[in-house]
């Protein structure tokens, strides 16, 4: 029953060369995973790194395009969900799958209800659940309605449900995202107990402090590939962070290009010099901002900063630490809980999107397919989205001015193909992003929120967008740049802030920053006194 006695046997999970594509998106490319019996294995990586897809293949929800999956030494590639459950694999999803009107016991036995004759033996179900609850330390009240549970309790029910079905390999998808710190500690106790009883646990997360605390072995994924496999005892947070956000060849080339641009660098230096003398006038200032997330958690937890004209403040951080909520609150898309936001001298804390635009705010949103573009609208119409009032007189849109604006922007931002009547959907990702950039930067503005401005675009478009951002800085605009690419932040920003769990843990001049320095702040192993 001890872990050492089982290490000689075949691994609990062995995945090799897994490829999986959805349309033209490659979620997994030659990904691999090896999990031994009786270990807590952390699967880490940023959003979109392919962790969930890999686990869906393990759980039988997806079939791999290529590669093999072995469980306990048996090749089970391409199995179904029912095969996976029968083989003892239990997946606890991020979004709970419980019936709120049923009790805890009813939910746990659902699908395998104990029968007394033809009747459902509820008393027996309660007894079973209570026994299981005692054995595992997962404290629940068997006769309570699920709708009355806290998220932490609901999660315990989910885990009990998989254990009741005989799960020996437990997969937990971002289990701590919804938990409070004491609930997280309780969960760790349970997971250790399950492991010591011979269970195998795979934990998907991107919070590195948790990984260090709970896991035995770590597998790092990035862009669909397995980057490395580390033993937790023999690694450091910095090493894991580097593996997670590490650079690739294209990125290195991009940064080199940025640095050889001597003219821009000179400009920047000149502007930075200017601020120190006239430091008072901030283009954007944010004070003690608190923003709640969709789940009622404090996603932005008291953030204060300001950006001067002609300055780029880079915001680094592992995704999911409040950057999205911060940008949405600044743009007027999410309500502010407390604190204030000023553009120039104007307080815009409670202004709507349109009023903030009028105050000089431009916003390149992180998701162009959801927010930034209306994919079925023409390029010309997309180029006036958010400015429709400007392009209308007496309630009627001015087609001639919209067309003229489109012509100007298409030329200025080199949008291809240069046709204003095509739907935005038909453009390539890079050109779609250029439409967004053209709209937001091809107008009068003083403050630019640039969120993941080069995500998913080709290298040529990246260069183009970067040089536009530098030009805007030279023209005296204040820019808040949020990027998952550390190199992008390092190449463009004058100052860099790191966000961790809703707070700015440091703000430093870009000259003092490097991947290693930022990495430690990003994973929360270091923070400056606020």
């Amino acid at each position, binding site marked *: 029953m001890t872990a050492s006695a089982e290490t000689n046997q075949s691994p609990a999970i062995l995945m090799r060369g897994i490829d999986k594509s959805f349309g033209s998106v490659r979620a997994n490319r030659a990904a691999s995973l090896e999990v031994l019996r009786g270990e807590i294995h952390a699967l880490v990586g940023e959003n979109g790194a392919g962790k969930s897809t890999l686990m869906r293949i393990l759980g039988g929800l997806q079939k791999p395009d290529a590669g093999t999956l072995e469980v306990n030494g048996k090749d089970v590639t391409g199995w179904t969900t029912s095969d996976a459950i029968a083989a003892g694999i239990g997946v606890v999803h991020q979004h709970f799958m419980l019936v709120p009107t049923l009790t805890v016991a009813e939910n746990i036995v659902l699908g395998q209800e104990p029968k007394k004759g033809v009747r459902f033996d509820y008393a027996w179900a309660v007894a079973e659940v209570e026994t299981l609850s005692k054995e595992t330390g997962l404290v629940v009240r068997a006769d309570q309605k699920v709708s009355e549970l806290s998220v932490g309790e609901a999660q315990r029910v989910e885990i009990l449900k998989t254990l009741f079905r005989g799960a020996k390999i437990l997969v937990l998808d971002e289990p701590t995202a919804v938990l409070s710190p004491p609930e997280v500690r309780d969960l760790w106790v349970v997971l250790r107990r399950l492991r010591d009883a011979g269970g195998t646990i795979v934990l998907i997360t991107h919070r590195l402090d948790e990984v260090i605390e709970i896991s035995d072995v770590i597998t790092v994924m990035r862009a669909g590939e397995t980057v490395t496999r580390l033993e937790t005892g023999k690694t450091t947070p910095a090493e894991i962070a580097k593996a997670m956000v590490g650079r690739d060849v294209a990125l290195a080339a991009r940064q080199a290009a940025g640095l050889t641009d001597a003219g821009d660098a000179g400009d920047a230096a000149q502007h930075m010099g200017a601020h120190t003398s006239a430091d008072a006038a901030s283009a954007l200032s944010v004070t003690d901002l608190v923003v709640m997330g969709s789940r009622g958690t404090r996603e932005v937890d008291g953030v204060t900063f300001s950006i001067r004209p002609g300055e780029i403040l880079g915001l680094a951080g592992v995704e999911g630490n409040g950057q999205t909520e911060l940008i949405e609150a600044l743009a007027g898309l999410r309500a502010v809980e407390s604190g204030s936001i000023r553009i120039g001298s104007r307080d815009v804390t409670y202004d709507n*999107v349109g009023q903030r635009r009028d105050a000089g705010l431009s*916003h390149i949103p992180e998701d162009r397919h959801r*927010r930034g573009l*209306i994919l079925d609208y023409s390029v010309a119409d997309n180029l006036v*989205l958010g400015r429709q009032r400007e392009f209308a007189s007496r309630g009627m849109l001015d087609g001639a001015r919209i067309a003229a604006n489109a012509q100007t922007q298409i030329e200025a931002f080199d949008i291809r193909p240069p046709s204003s*009547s095509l739907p935005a959907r038909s453009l390539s990702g890079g050109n779609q992003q250029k439409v967004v950039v053209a709209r937001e930067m091809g107008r009068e503005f003083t403050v630019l929120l640039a969120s993941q401005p080069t*995500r998913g675009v080709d290298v040529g478009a990246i260069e183009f967008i970067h040089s536009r951002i530098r030009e805007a800085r030279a023209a005296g605009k204040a820019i808040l740049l949020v990027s998952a690419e550390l190199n992008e932040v390092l190449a463009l920003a004058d100052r860099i802030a790191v966000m961790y769990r809703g707070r700015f843990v440091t703000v430093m001049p870009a000259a003092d920053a490097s991947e290693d320095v930022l990495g430690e702040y990003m994973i929360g192993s270091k923070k400056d006194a606020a």
Partner: protein
Amino acid sequence: MTSRFRTQLEEALFPPIIALLIALVCGDLLIMSYGQSPATVYRLLLEGTWGNAYGFGQVLYKATTLAFTGLAVSLGIRAGLFNVGAEGQLAAGGFAAAFVGLHLTSAVPWLIAIPLCMMGAAVGGGIVGAVPGYLRVKFGAHEVIVTIMLNFIVLALLNWLIANHIHVEETLHTPEIGAGAIPRLDAFMPAFHGSAANLSMVVAAITALAGWYYLFRSRRGFELRAVGLQPDAAEYGGVSVRGVWFRALTLSGAIAGLGGINYVLGYKHYYEDGLAGGAGFLGIAVALVGRNHPLGVIIAALFFATLSQGGLAIHAFVPKQMVEVLQGVVILAVAMSVPEVRRVLRLGRKPVTA
């Protein structure tokens, strides 16, 4: 600009034409199963509708109401909302028009009386449309549920009003209106004698034109379509999504309500229980077949009106219900080809690529 118009036109016309072809094939099979020749039956159907003035007049009359309800439903769909309440809104509009008309005397000139009654119809339908709009905005109540339920409430309420308060003895209709009647077509074209066709169809055509202008040329239309396509992007573009929802459902109700004038002001000159007669529900099919484009809606309204009137003409050869089956086939065929419906059914989804 011309090529853009052409693609718009293709988008508007292509699915209905395919649907028509599918319906024709299914219709052939159905007719043959009754031992009749499809050619004969279709000839009769056309002769009884487009082939003589009376039949054509009836088609125009039926198409007018369907155009209003079709436009109403399509406006909602453009905003991403499914208004299933056109039936109740149509009845409420008809009743309101009659109610206004009853309080006017024949001394009131038509130039004042007709607009007053029309306004009454639009307001009546608009109020019924505003209720789901308000509930959606305020409490997040789903408009489909609310509009379906409101149909029962409104129709029962009107039935109660007619049966217990404002009716002519022994009937289920109101007295005749004092003023506000819209002239029938046979007043200037005697050939249409006996058909219910009246100048309400001009109002329908103007409404369609205004609807097109609103949707594709006005700022509010730009915002409304944006909300319908991508609410998150609309919100990002400074559009009040809730405002658009409320406005769209109210306007949709008003247009459906305006449809009530066809019967009340143009045909019978009184409100009668059961006036809507399913035209509100058929408006959903009209909107879908018409691809939610005002021009398409007009064509689809004519098409469904032809089927409905044609059903009477071929009664001797095949059961009238066959035409209803055909309508069902058309709706299903269009449902498969209309992007809006496909999106709902999650078919033919293009993967979003970076």
